[in-house]
Every structure is written in structure tokens, then in C-alpha cells.
């Protein structure tokens, strides 16, 4: 049988086969694995993005809640942050008493994150109503103050002498900060 394929065509065929093999090897060895990696990384990225969106949405929600809480409790937050000032306290509440004396500020043990101070108070009132008004006013004062038992009322001629302790709450800052005793009397 006589071979009719020319030498030229044999070269052509050989080159074609070689290039085809190169294309196939390149595709299977590099392109397809890289494509798979691209797909996986794309999926990972989308997943991370979704997760980030969740975090951001949650952050936005709680940030909104924090804003609402802050605006609703502005006075309370400010009251906790403010240091107790006996002179200012006396000025603010003098109108309810004939005389008012805030004697000392003693730091008690912190309750959780709150610093607690105790203040001894003696006062003179001409009727119990003044004391009721004082208790109403103390809830609207610049500090978070609780009036404690025991409360002692004693009649002194036409006046009532009252003595009691108050607890002032604040935010505990630096525990090493020294707290100067305040001693004011009227």
C-alpha cells in the first residue's frame, strides 16, 4: 500500500497533535484547578460578606438601641457621672429645711461597678410636709441619692430636728483615687 501523505502534512499533523496536547495539559493541570479555586474563594467571600452584613446590621440595631437608651436616661447617666458636691446639695435643697447640714462623705465598698458614699445629714423642719417635699425633690436632684434608715425625728420646741444618712451612688472610676472628705455645715 502506497503512502500518499506528504511530508508537509505529517509535520502539520504532528504540530497539531503537539499543540492539542499542550492545550489539554494546560487546561487540566492549571486552568481547571484555578477555576475551582476561584469558585470556592468566591463562595467564601460571599459567605464572609453575608456574615459581615449580619454583624453590621446587629451593630446598627444595638447602636440605635443604645442611642434611645442614652436619650431616655440622659439625666440618670449624668447623675451617676457627677461627683457629689455637698455645698451644691445644700444650696439645692435648703428651701425644704429651716437648716440643713451635710456633714461628711465616706466611701463605702463598691457595689458592682458603682461607687457608694455615705453622707450624714442633720436638718430642722417645721412640718413633716417639708420632709416629704425633700424626698420628692431628691429623686429629681443632680445625684442618685437614697435616704436610709434609721431616720430620727425629734421635737425641739416648734421645730422638728431630723437626722439621717444618705447613700450617694456614682460610677466607680479609679479605685485608687483619693476621696477628700467634705465637711460643710450651716
Amino acid at each position, binding site marked *: 500500500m502506497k503512502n500518499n501523505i506528504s511530508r508537509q502534512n505529517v509535520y502539520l499533523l504532528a504540530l497539531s497533535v503537539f499543540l492539542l496536547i*499542550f492545550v489539554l495539559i*494546560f487546561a487540566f493541570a492549571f486552568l481547571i484547578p484555578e477555576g475551582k479555586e*476561584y469558585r470556592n474563594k468566591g463562595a467564601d467571600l460571599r459567605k464572609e460578606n453575608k456574615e459581615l452584613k449580619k454583624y453590621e446590621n446587629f451593630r446598627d440595631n*444595638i447602636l440605635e438601641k443604645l442611642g434611645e437608651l442614652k436619650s431616655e436616661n440622659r439625666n440618670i447617666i449624668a447623675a451617676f457621672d457627677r461627683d457629689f458636691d455637698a455645698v451644691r446639695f445644700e444650696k439645692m435643697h435648703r428651701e425644704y429645711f429651716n437648716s440643713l447640714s451635710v456633714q461628711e462623705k465616706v466611701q463605702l465598698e463598691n457595689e458592682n461597678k458603682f461607687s457608694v458614699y455615705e453622707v450624714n445629714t442633720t436638718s430642722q423642719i417645721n412640718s413633716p410636709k417639708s420632709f416629704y417635699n425633700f424626698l420628692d425633690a431628691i429623686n429629681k436632684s443632680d445625684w442618685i441619692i437614697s435616704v436610709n434608715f434609721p431616720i430620727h425625728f425629734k*421635737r425641739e420646741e416648734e421645730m422638728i430636728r431630723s437626722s439621717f444618712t444618705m447613700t450617694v451612688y456614682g460610677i466607680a472610676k479609679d479605685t485608687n483615687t483619693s476621696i477628700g472628705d467634705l465637711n460643710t455645715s450651716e
Partner: protein
Amino acid sequence: MMYSYIKPRKKSLFTPEMQLLSIFFGITIFMLLGTYLFLLFKDYRFTQDRSEIIELREATSMEIDLIQKSIISIEEEKVLSETVFTKNTVLKDSIANMFDLVPQRITLSEAKLLENGLVLYGVTPNKDIYNFMLQAPLRSIFHRTYSSFYPAENGWLHFVSTNYVDKEEEIIMKPIDEETQEDDAKEEIEDEE
């Protein structure tokens, strides 16, 4: 000597078939390489984006922690302040109730409001008025009530009324013997009165 009348054509390596083949494989290889480079670049970008997203997520997570701490802190402040305000209001009501409890015919000279009790000092025209108008309502409020009297200069009686509320836990914890002893003591005091 000539074998042909035409001129021999020049033989070249780039025959039309070869050119076609080169163009075909050239384009194919170019597209494959292009795609490969594109994928490499995208992979690199994906890796970079992912690390940026992770950093951003960690920052957001830290921000969330801070915000949550602030929220908890404000809520604690709110709860404590409400407790304090309620305590003050209850205290005001307690004091008002105490003063309302004292009838006009009895004069108080001193009052001590304790956490679990009340001590009253004053003068009463006689024991009956004290017993009916002050001791009876006090007994309905407090668990233990003790009274003592001593004469005043104007013929009235000075009195000291000591009243205590027993905490429920204390009542439960107290042994029966102690309760019985206490009841006996109470009866003795009442007898003395």
C-alpha cells in the same frame, strides 16, 4: 535542460495550512492564558477582600462588645436609680403613714424609723386613748409591739412604743421553741402593761 515550462514556486514553512493552524492555536492559547491570568488576579483579589472583610468583622465585633457593655451599664444604672427612687418614695409614704397614724390627742416628742421597726416617744392623756387610738393600729402593722409608760408632770403619761416587723425568713428559720418563748415573753409584757 528544462523539465518544466513554469518557474518553480518558492517553498515556505508558512504554508496557508500552517498559517491557519498557527492562528487557530495562537488564539486558543491566548484565550487560555488570558483566562488563567484573569483567574489568578481574581483569586488574589478575593484573598485580599476576604482578609479585609475578616478584619472589618473583627472590628465590628469589638464595636458590638463595647456597645453591649454600654447598654448593660446604662440598664444597670437605670435599674439602680429606679430602685433608689422607689425606695425614697416608699420611705416618704412610710413617714407620712407614721405621722397620720398618730391621733391629735397624742403628742409625739420623738420618732425613730428603723429598717424593721418604729420607736415612738410621746405623751398621752391616759392609757386608754393610747391603747385604742395608737397601739391598736400599730399592732395591725407590726408583728411585735411593746409599750411602756411613766407619769408626766401634768398628770399625763409619757410613753415609749417600740414596734418591730419580723422578716419572713427569720420567722421560718426560728425554731418553734424560740417562738413559744417569745410569745410567753410578749404575754408577760402585756400583762405588765
